[in-house]
């Protein structure tokens, strides 16, 4: 946990859950702690408890019981995922349907919900748009699809909530080991209730079975979409469809492996024919050929049986994309020439100053400045090599070799991304605070207008109410909204870079672990032999 990450988490929580939750988060980020150490000074305990419950309800805080204490801990990754929620919704809209999008949105807003509550609210939304399109069983079908794909997961179920609430002995509820039960919701009754526009009475038959979204599955989905987008840029839409098909076969798993979707040529071809992509099926060989050539090798041939076994090289793709991203960051921050020097270092593992000057075709003095800038900003690392000049000892000459330690650079950039995200959120908060009263007024007038329209007020009355906000105020409102939108946009862009870097680091960590484990195994074997 870095300082920047902590700050970012606090700011995200502040934006959505308020100041009390922010101070609770701040205390929790130091490590798991019991309740009395989580209550910030100057905050009423009741409020701190409420904040903790709100965070827990949204899956940001977890608890474990330890003796007579309950320890709370915060999931920083889950907090950061909140920034990505719009992107999750977009994925739903692109790959599934509007109803799926609504379901996920409901779950994001409420944290966790029983199925019948989801059906009711989503049904209400559909009904408000077009009463003829309302079909509760249809919504349930969409929900089941999302569950099958792993986007929605069941919250751990309490064994017996009634007795737990009555019993004073138990500190924490006991949970049933994960069992997905078929939920029987009375779809017809819900349908009736929506049509008669009755209020949600909250007494659902399945109120103990709650659902929430699975952040890691969504992250995997976005990672896949990055790879698909890369394929589209490399070839065309059909190439993207091909990669999507190959990925979708394995997307039921959370594929953490560097290579996924092992499929033979003929199976792939028949699958594609089923999707009615005839033009793709005809040129399948060519597409596969193009996708596995060049620097960006998205597809890899891993066998010859069945007309050739093909798979998606996830890790390699992410590696190359990350290198490109870092390169373009260097380019935008320090100019084209610096980017050229950086690319040179990236391509040749170790280069010395002479080589840089000669290969990059940049005058010696300028090249030195550029190398200096790169190492100053931690894009390039320096390694000192001593080599003896003469045969005898003593006369040593140092050679300085430059190289790029990509995981190191990426870690630094992740920090920078978090810092700038924090800055954006801070700025946003300040904007909101500055114009808080104006925005409040605007909100109230809007609400008033809405009720007046519902009551069927005359045009003149509406105009009168509308005039409560003066033209200069109106200008100010648009300006504030514009600034907020711009900041949100920046936030989203930074986050998309951050996601790529995080995926890269995840793969890198995994590779490292694998390497160390195989090395460990080798060592133990050797020990046994001796």
């Amino acid at each position, binding site marked *: 946990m870095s300082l920047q990450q902590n700050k970012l988490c606090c700011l995200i929580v502040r*934006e959505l859950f308020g*100041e009390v939750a922010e101070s609770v988060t701040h205390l929790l980020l130091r490590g798991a702690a019991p309740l009395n150490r989580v209550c910030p000074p*100057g905050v009423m305990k009741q409020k701190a408890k409420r904040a903790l419950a709100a965070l827990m309800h949204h899956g940001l805080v977890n608890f474990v019981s330890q003796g007579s204490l309950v320890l709370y801990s915060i999931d920083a990754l889950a907090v950061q995922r909140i920034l990505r929620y719009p992107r999750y919704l*977009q994925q739903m809209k692109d790959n599934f349907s509007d109803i799926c999008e609504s379901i996920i949105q409901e779950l994001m807003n409420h944290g966790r919900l029983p199925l019948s509550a989801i059906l009711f609210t989503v049904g209400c939304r559909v009904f408000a748009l077009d009463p003829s399109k309302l079909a509760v069983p249809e919504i349930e079908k969409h929900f089941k699809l999302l569950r099958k794909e792993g986007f929605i997961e069941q919250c751990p179920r309490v064994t017996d909530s009634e007795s737990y609430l009555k019993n004073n002995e138990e500190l924490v509820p006991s949970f049933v080991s994960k069992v997905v039960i078929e939920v029987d919701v009375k779809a017809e009754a819900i349908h009736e209730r929506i049509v008669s526009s009755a209020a949600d009475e909250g007494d659902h038959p399945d109120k103990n079975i709650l659902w929430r979204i699975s952040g890691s599955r969504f992250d995997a989905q976005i990672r896949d979409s990055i790879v698909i987008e890369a394929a589209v840029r490399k070839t065309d839409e059909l190439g993207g469809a091909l990669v999507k098909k190959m990925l979708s076969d394995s997307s039921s798993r959370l594929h953490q492996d560097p290579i996924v979707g092992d499929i033979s040529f003929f199976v792939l071809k028949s699958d594609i024919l089923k999707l009615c992509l005839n033009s793709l099926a005809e040129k399948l060989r060519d597409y596969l050929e193009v996708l596995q050539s060049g620097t960006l090798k998205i597809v890899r041939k891993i066998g010859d049986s069945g007309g050739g076994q093909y798979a998606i090289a996830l890790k390699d793709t992410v590696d190359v994309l990350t290198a490109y991203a870092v390169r373009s960051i260097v380019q935008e921050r320090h100019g084209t020439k610096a980017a050229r020097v950086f690319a040179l270092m990236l391509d040749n593992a170790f280069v010395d100053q002479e080589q840089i000057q000669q290969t990059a075709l940049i005058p010696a003095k300028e090249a030195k400045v550029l190398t200096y800038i790169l190492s100053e900003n931690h894009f390039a690392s320096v390694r000192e090599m001593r080599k003896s000049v003469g045969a005898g000892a003593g006369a040593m000459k140092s050679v300085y070799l430059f190289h790029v330690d990509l995981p190191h650079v990426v870690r630094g950039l992740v920090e920078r991304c978090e810092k700038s995200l924090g800055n954006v959120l801070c700025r946003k908060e300040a904007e909101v605070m500055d114009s808080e009263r104006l925005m409040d007024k605007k909100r109230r007038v809007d609400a008033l207008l809405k009720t007046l329209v519902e009551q069927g007020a005359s045009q003149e009355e509406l105009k009168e109410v509308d005039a409560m906000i003066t033209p200069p105020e109106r200008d100010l409102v648009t300006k504030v909204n514009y600034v907020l939108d711009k900041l949100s946009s920046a936030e989203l862009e930074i986050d998309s870079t951050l996601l790529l870097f995080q995926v890269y680091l995840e793969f890198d960590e995994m590779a490292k672990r694998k390497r160390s484990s195989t090395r460990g195994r080798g060592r133990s074997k050797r020990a046994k032999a001796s």
Partner: protein
Amino acid sequence: MGSRGRGRGRGQGGTFSMEQLGVQKGEGMPTAVLQPPPVFPPPEYRPLPLSTGPRQEYLISAKRDLRSYMRESPFHIKQRSASNWLSGLVTKIKEDERVRNEDAPMFSSCCWSQFPKELIPVAEGGKARKRKVVKRKKSAVKADGTDILEKLSKLEETGDGGPTVEKEAGSDEETDDEDDENKDKKGMLGIEEEEQVEEVDEEMDGGTDYANNYFDPGDEYADDGDDDNDEGGVY
């Protein structure tokens, strides 16, 4: 100082030539910098424009929706900040509007059973305490100020008055009795009573209610429930 005893190595370690750093002889050295660098140096390159288009619009609006939903929802909990009296007053006014929102249940009661017991609010206890406090305030105030006059005369008699705790307890008992007597009166008085509350409240500040937050309007006073940390509002 450390190298004093070792005369031989001194010449090599202590100085270095510019050539070693790769600076040629006669090459212009930068002039000395006499001021700190600017806090916000102008960026060397302008950042790229943010991407636009319908997709970005969609993302932004989704973000806006989530934000506005969460800010209005009961999940958003505001702290009463009273760094200075004006901002304290402003936030107080705002909070009163929000009270309904904050008291609203965050989620249905069955959800509470998923959490550790220490977090589950005790609804009954809180309510009982609230009613008691409200009663006390109203009754202390309603009898045309005679209550206070009586109390003041009593205080005069006792001189020093003894410890404050006793006084408080005494007034409490009295007011409770008064309350029972005036129950039917109260209903009739209605609005007048409210006005009196405002009038006499100022006097009360010096009396029994000194421990309360100055900006607390009487009726909503006990909403905070737990009064562990409630005393001594920071003005």
